[in-house]
């Protein structure tokens, strides 16, 4: 039971990282109807920027905040320069474009920062000690990651639901033409969505590096698949669904890996195929996800 509780807590921590990336995917999907395959590589790239900042003597949390700003600006720039010209084009084109971004950013991370072992952050952002609650050792880092991620999700929720800009963001995603008529600058709202997504992705990247060192140019590839699974489980359109989906995926993967020591199925290695299986099952049984709304298409 103690082991169970412990695995649930650490599953929630890694799950909150998947949730953050899934949230980034959902924000872009809601506004453009396209899944951004480059989301993970964008996160890796910004994490390397954070590493560079820290390497130049900036403290961890200032660098963290600065990186979020840089990621936001980068996301806006990407949307304006690369995605804008094909806005409203076929899904195929935009998907290929994000795959191009995926390959290019992955290549750039490998090129600029080479493939040498780095630890990031040099000093852990959270204390390494643990709390002992009823025999369950809960790492402060896990709680910290969970707390910061959920806090940011809450901020995002407030932004979307209780500000004018959030209203404009939701409106332009829902009905671009009508939004334009009432004076919303839809193009900039889409760019804003990309910026927000990039910033949230950056959090996922920096926490992935902290939770599973070392910092590696390919670290977000598996996380991206878990985030896809989380987003699909959550229904791709629902931010709350993405967060719950991420936590679910994180906890289930952790439990599966733990109890595999009794089953001997080598399931720890099969985390990615299991996530893929989850995607397939959800798509087959309930394509709208657990929290999404079914899409209706006029034929």
């Amino acid at each position, binding site marked *: 039971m103690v082991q169970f509780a412990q695995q649930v807590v650490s599953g929630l921590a890694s799950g909150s990282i998947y949730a953050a990336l899934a949230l980034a995917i959902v924000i872009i999907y809601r506004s453009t*109807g*396209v*899944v951004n*395959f480059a989301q993970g590589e964008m996160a890796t790239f910004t994490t390397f920027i954070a590493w560079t900042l820290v390497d130049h003597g900036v403290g961890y949390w200032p660098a963290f905040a600065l990186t979020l700003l840089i990621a936001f600006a980068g996301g806006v720039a990407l949307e304006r320069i*690369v995605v804008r*010209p*094909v806005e409203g084009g*076929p*899904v*195929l*084109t935009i*998907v*290929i*474009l994000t*795959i*191009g*971004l*995926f*390959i*290019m*950013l*992955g*290549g*750039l*991370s*490998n*090129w*600029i920062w*080479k*493939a040498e072992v780095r630890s990031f952050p040099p000093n852990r952002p959270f204390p390494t000690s643990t709390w002992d609650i009823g025999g369950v050792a809960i790492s402060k880092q896990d709680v910290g990651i969970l707390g910061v991620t959920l806090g940011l999700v809450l901020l995002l929720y407030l932004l979307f639901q209780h500000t004018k800009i959030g209203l404009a963001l939701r409106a332009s995603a829902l009905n671009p033409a009508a939004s334009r008529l009432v004076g919303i600058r839809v193009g900039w709202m889409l760019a804003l969505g990309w910026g927000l997504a990039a910033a949230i992705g950056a959090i996922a990247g920096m926490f992935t590096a902290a939770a599973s060192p070392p910092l590696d*140019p390919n670290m977000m*590839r*598996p996380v*991206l*698949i878990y985030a*896809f*699974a989380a987003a*699909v489980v959550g229904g791709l359109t629902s931010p709350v669904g993405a967060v719950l989906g991420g936590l679910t995926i994180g906890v289930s993967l952790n439990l599966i890996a733990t109890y595999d020591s009794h089953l001997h*199925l*080598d399931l720890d*290695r*099969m*985390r*990615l*195929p299991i*996530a*893929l299986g989850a*995607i*397939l099952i959800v*798509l*087959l049984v309930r*394509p709208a996800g657990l929290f999404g709304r079914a899409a209706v298409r006029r*034929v």
Partner: protein
Amino acid sequence: MSRLAAARVAVTAIALAAATVAVFLAPRWDKVGDIKGAQMGVYFIALLGLNIVTGYTGQISLGHGAFMAVGGYTTAILVADHGVRDLWTIPIAGLVAGIAGFLVGVPALRLSGLYLALVTFGLAVAMPDILSWDKLERVTHGGKEVQLFGKPALTGKGFADVSILGQTVTFTRAVHYLTWAVALVLLVVAWLLLRGPPGRAFRAVRDSEVAATSSGVNIAAYKTFAFAISAAYAGIAGSLLVIAVAFADPQAFPAKLSLTLLVGVVVAGLGSLWGVLAGAAFIEFLPDAAVHVSKAQGVPDTVYGAALILIVLVLPTGVAGGLRRALTPLTTRLYTRS
């Protein structure tokens, strides 16, 4: 047959003949040249397949490297563990990969193209792990290299010469010829398939699902068919790749392979068969060219990605479409809107 169609047939025939000559007579290469030529042939076949499903049917597959893995492993296992002659495993590899494509395609195709992209991307990333799974060890050797002939892999060195039609050629040269012979056969098959009713149905599905349904095209059936055929092509490509290097291991089929194939098919021009040659050459030789820019890791990827983005933004019809436009007389372009 209209004049336009006749001209297209003629051009295709000439291109085919030229390709045949270039492939079989031109190479006076060393071993490395042979291997590179064979690898380009492998890419060519895989791109043909990918183009059928992505270019003609409009379904995004980001997982064709995984189907190459299925084909490659079929060959490796049949040769290494069951003593089947390597040549005969090629069609079997195509068949097995085709079935795998069918099984993946059936559930994914019930949903929109975006989900297919998601699922195939997941498949590409998960494939090396599936191949390394302990529970499949009896079949796949659990992530260890599968040696075809019980010899260490030395990229062709030390393999016995092969006798073809009374001529003795080195193993690598034989592999090169074999790959391109298969490639030409498959090119003709693809061409016949795509210029007939199935090709028309594929394009209808791509251009408007609603219109295709109204015209009596069974969308699900054609999508699945295209996906299975396309996976079979990838399987044959994977089989030839394994034959060329005489071993298979999960790392030979990383997720990157699938994405590289997508780059190739976009460079080629979606929906163009002969552009595939340019696409295959691009992904085969770009890493060599990139070394001149910088020896750092990641340079080829940076160029691949940038090329992909640039082509989508500037030359959406790929090399083939660009050439076609350049060759069309200016007057035609002035008076007709594409």
